[in-house]
């Protein structure tokens, strides 16, 4: 992707909203914000035709910084608002930004149905393995055995694999990336925007303030290094044995398939309904 000049990024940010942002120093959300803005600039989209929708949590604060239409909704409900916006005006590019608790716990039902419905929405799920804003409680993606402020003696529930969950539910495009692999992240977001149908990118991002501290993972830099150490490109991952995969995860495009979107089907429904109405009249 061509490099994006700082002045262009500047144009896509809101300056009547006072920076600095609300996130902890070292949080991956700033990296994601940069990546998203660069991707939007490169996409050639008109910023008047882009709408960012978020839920509640650290990730929920992201849209306010971007100079597009932005809706900071209720906890877990970003995809429901996004569905309404897209149906109301299919010409808009609608991007939701959610956290792991936001998208897979309280909003889990909306996530699987949005994926199943295959409406042309874009979903970014920032996975930091815990509820950051409320102080580090366990979420559906907290690994078994990890500590959280509501799992002082170690977490005892198996965790969700967000990407696998969305793929199974029917998403047209699923990719995974991290805030360490910034160039790859830019690329994944770009592919997501280009894809018709429900497209999702899971972005691993460190929460050193809560998850990191409770689990003695060191600073944000140390946590970033674990992404570098453990991430494996999807192409290589597919050739790895079960033992080799232990403790590691894949990044890249996991699912990319074409099936008609909800709006394709709905256009047919409208035609059928109008035709029947005409026939009834004559």
């Amino acid at each position: 992707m061509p490099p994006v000049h700082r002045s262009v990024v500047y144009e896509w940010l809101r300056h009547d909203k006072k920076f600095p942002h609300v996130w902890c120093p070292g949080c991956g959300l700033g990296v994601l914000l940069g990546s998203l803005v660069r991707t939007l600039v490169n996409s050639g989209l008109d910023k008047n035709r882009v709408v960012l929708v978020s839920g509640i949590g650290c990730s929920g604060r992201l849209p306010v910084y971007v100079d597009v239409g932005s809706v900071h909704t209720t906890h877990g409900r970003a995809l429901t608002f996004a569905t309404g916006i897209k149906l109301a005006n299919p010409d808009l590019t609608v991007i939701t930004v959610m956290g792991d608790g936001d998208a897979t716990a309280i909003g889990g039902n909306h996530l699987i149905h949005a994926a199943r419905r295959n409406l042309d929405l874009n979903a970014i799920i920032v996975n930091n393995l815990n509820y950051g804003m409320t102080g580090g409680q366990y979420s559906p993606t907290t690994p078994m055995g990890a500590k959280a402020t509501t799992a002082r003696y170690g977490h005892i529930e198996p965790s969700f694999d967000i990407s696998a969950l969305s793929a199974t539910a029917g998403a047209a495009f699923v990719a995974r990336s991290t805030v360490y692999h910034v160039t790859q992240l830019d690329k994944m977001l770009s592919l997501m925007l280009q894809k018709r149908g429900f497209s999702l990118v899971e972005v691993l991002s460190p929460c050193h303030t809560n998850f990191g501290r409770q689990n003695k993972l060191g600073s944000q830099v140390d946590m970033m290094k674990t992404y570098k150490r453990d991430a494996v490109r999807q192409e290589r991952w597919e050739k790895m044995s079960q033992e080799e995969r232990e403790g590691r995860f894949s990044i890249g495009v996991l699912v990319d398939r074409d099936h008609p979107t909800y709006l394709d089907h709905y256009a047919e429904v409208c035609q059928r309904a109008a035709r029947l109405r005409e026939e009834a009249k004559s």
Partner: protein
Amino acid sequence: MAKTPVNRARLLQGNEAIALGALAAGCDFFAGYPITPASEITEIMSRELPALGHPFIQMEDEIASIGCCLGASLAGRKAMTATSGPGFSLMQENLGYACIAEIPTVIVNVMRAGPSTGMPTNPGQGDVQQARWGTHGDHPAIVLCPASVGECFEVAVQCFNFAERFRTPVVLLSDEVVAHMREKVTLPAEGQVEVINRPRPLEPPDWYKPYKADGSQIPRLADLGQGYRYHVTGLVHDERGFPTRRADEVEPFYARLFNKISRNFTMLEMVKGVALEDAEILIIAYGCTARSAQAAVRLGRERGLKLGLLQLISLWPFPRRPVEEALAGKKLCLVPELNMGQISREVKRVNNGRTQVHRHSKMDGSMITPEELLARLRVLS
């Protein structure tokens, strides 16, 4: 050949009339989830909207349904959802969002006997206070309640007009009896319905502040994705829509939220009087109970009792002045309800001890009959 005049008289069900009223008011978006006794509205919208080329969607639950409506409304559509008690409970979260973010939408709650699953589907009127206070935090509310099939149509139009005019969610509180009742109604001819659309910004995008209001206290709402790049949030926000906790911004925000409704109380007070002129005994009722009360007034007068009825169509804001006027000089007032006294409490508050006000509560899954009301009045008077 001369065109035959269209006969607008129709035999309609209450729920059907709500759907037709919504369409006449310009409803062009519907998201819902099945629930008895509201499903007919969703079914009719699923038939009508695609034929007009407008979106209809059945969502995964009621939370999603109202979320979808709010998103669509921000993008410029006139959106409605319909549900009953259990679904209405789920909608409270986003109803609050619509209040604070000032998003017009219409939520139909066809009441059934609750709480929880209660008695599906016997009549109840237990959601009157929930419609007022169901979502957390202090907020204004507009809630309208029809008692006939004709009123279902009119009230549905009115709900949209209030939602658009005041940039706020409006609840249409119907009940199982009114919803499933069939009556002959004469619908207004096309184009004869007064339709109000939200005020949209007049200024260019660069000058637009989504929460800055003029003297009307109602800010103009731009459609998302039409050049006005603004922010919407459930956090308390400043005029630009950005989160704030500054007391000098928070206080005016709340004041405006309430003022935009309270300054228009007169417009929002909707009641109907029956034989009030010479009445000595007053019945105040709403929804299906108002129908029994109408019959009671007729039967009572045949038997020499000077009865009158004040039917409330707007429940919230509570129509204080008409109620006060109707109560003045009456010997006795009876407030029949299918709950333990949710509106009688308001009547007593307004009455302030001047007239004898009694509640007549019933919660056995059946209607209050006219004879039952007359028997109660015989005991009281």
